């Protein structure tokens, strides 16, 4: 197993290098280099000053030299300096990863808690009413534009909330965006307040994963319950519950673990839309804001961070698969 992990790590090196080249390309493709952007707002800057600045920052050097220098800095954890935030990008990331985790972890748990039971039930009662409802729901989940869904939820729960006419439901008004109410004391009130802010964005963020996981659970389960060993287990006279839980489910969940591990990073990367719609100060919002604001150093650094996350979770998925499924040979 250790050798397998080691080999997978070795295989990651060329991919990581390839990604770094593409990422560097993204940086150099930007219209204007950081010095151009720095002086764009100041017409008094003289050409010789521009040349001096470019020399100072090494922008006059050939691309391959710049790439090697950039890679060296990146590997040492220096992701550059944000032009618009006037801060090192690593500080920006550090401040926002926590906020993103709140949302991503909640959405992830929500997706798994709903999707796995629904998918299993859907497979066990194929063509039942619930199966039809669940299958249709998965189509809705993968087809709905996230930003539109978010806006509609905000309108429904923060602006319109027609149910507040009923006194018993008058509390059900949710904040349209943001992360917490100013002035709320720490401890329990803080968490209750945070919960109110998280309901809408976590549902919106979870929907796509929920739909995807439901599909995978259902099809994986359908495949497994047709296998001979499940028929054998039934033929042995085992209780249906035992057949499902011990024989079918455990095998059906193996591919699901891979899908889930692969999509955690996707959840992180998919958060830009949700975080922007709900004004949630996370990593995704940082990405969107820096792209729109023309802060390409910060944008590229966030992308690099997301790509590394994907790489790590891909490894986790592979190793998890090899651990769970003894049929996979990993030597």
């Amino acid at each position, binding site marked *: 197993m250790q050798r397998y992990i080691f080999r997978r790590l070795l295989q990651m090196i*060329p991919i990581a290098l390839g*990604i770094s080249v593409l990422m560097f390309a993204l940086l150099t493709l930007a219209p204007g280099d950081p010095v151009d952007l720095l002086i764009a707002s100041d017409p008094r800057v003289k050409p010789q000053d521009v040349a001096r600045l470019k020399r100072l920052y090494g922008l006059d050097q050939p691309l391959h030299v710049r790439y090697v220098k950039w890679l060296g800095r990146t590997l040492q954890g220096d992701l550059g300096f944000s032009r618009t935030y006037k801060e090192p990008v690593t500080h920006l990331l550090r401040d926002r990863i926590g906020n993103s985790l709140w949302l991503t972890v909640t959405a992830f748990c929500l997706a798994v808690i709903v999707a796995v039971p629904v998918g299993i039930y859907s497979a066990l009662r194929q063509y039942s009413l619930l199966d039809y409802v669940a299958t249709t729901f998965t189509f809705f989940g993968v087809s*709905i*534009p996230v930003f*539109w869904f978010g806006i*509609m939820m905000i309108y429904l729960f923060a602006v319109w909330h027609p149910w507040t006419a009923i006194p018993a439901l008058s509390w059900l008004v949710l904040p349209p965006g943001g992360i917490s109410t100013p002035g709320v004391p720490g401890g329990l009130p803080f968490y209750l307040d945070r919960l109110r802010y998280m309901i809408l964005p976590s549902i919106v963020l979870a929907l796509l994963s929920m739909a995807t996981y439901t599909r995978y659970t259902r099809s994986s389960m359908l495949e497994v319950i047709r296998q001979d060993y499940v028929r054998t287990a039934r033929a042995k006279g085992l209780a249906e519950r035992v057949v499902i839980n011990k024989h079918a489910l455990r095998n059906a969940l193996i591919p699901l673990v891979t899908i889930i591990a692969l999509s955690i990073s996707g959840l992180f990367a998919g958060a830009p*839309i949700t975080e922007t719609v709900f004004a949630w100060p996370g990593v995704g919002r940082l990405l969107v804001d820096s792209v*729109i604001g023309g802060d390409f150093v910060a944008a590229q650094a966030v992308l690099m961070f997301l*790509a590394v996350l*994907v790489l790590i979770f891909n490894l986790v998925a592979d190793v998890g698969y090899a651990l769970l499924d003894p049929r996979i040979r990993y030597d």
Partner: protein
Amino acid sequence: MARNAVSLAPPAPAAGLPAGEGYWQIAWRRLRRHRLAMGGLAVIVVLIASAVFAPWIAPYGFEQIDLLNRFAPPFRAGHLLGTDDLGHDVLTRLLFAGRVSLLVGFAAAFSAVALGTLVGIIAGFYGGLVDNVLMRFTDIVLTLPVFGVLLLLGRYFGGGLIAIIIIIGLFGWTVTSRLVRGEILKLKHLDYSDAARALGASETRIIFRHLLPNAMAPIIVAATLDVGGAILTEAALSYFGVGIQPPTPSWGNMLQNAQSYMWTSPWLAFWPGAMIFLTVLCFNFFGDGLRDALDPRLKQ
């Protein structure tokens, strides 16, 4: 779609069937029984027709402004779906925006699938080092946080129709390339392609005459689902202001514009999003039905 594809089909599969029905006829017969897929197809046809004939069926001119009735709610002042901040008729704008969104969807999906098919064929057919290099490259692109990269590239080069199509197409080919590579690997050692090679057929002939037509089913399914995906991507990019730029309307940038008037005129945000949702949903229904209908393992 299946009817048009008949000409692509190799005559071979039909030979063994008593009814003289080809693979594509069987698929079409199966597809017709798939209610969701046919419903999806019907809506797609209507949407395409309404986009093509937009100038003739739109109740108002594309740039016509009804200054006295800005922000009119639906069903008032002669505007079925209301008017926007400038007094544009929303229904008219939706019809014209549909042209852009559908065009981007089809063109981007087509370029993505064409590129993916090309990479998949080369990797699968030639194998060895070429295969290795191409597949590692596919891995690299798959690892990229694609949406963020598209956002950044949209900011760099966006605005134009062609730029958006190229950007979306350039990053959407990976899944198809793996799929096609797998199919080619499976097909290239079957007896008929060995036979073709033994008869002295050229590589191009083997690929385009014998391998590609038989790998067509999953490619068509991928293309159909990709159209929906590309429409969603374009809408998201335009929503963030780095996709199609106003005054060219697309469903995404209509939504972005509408967001400023959410509190007072919520219907402005409702319609464009609902159109995106409906369109993508129909492509997914249709693609799913197509997958079932084209699956050669399901004999009927």
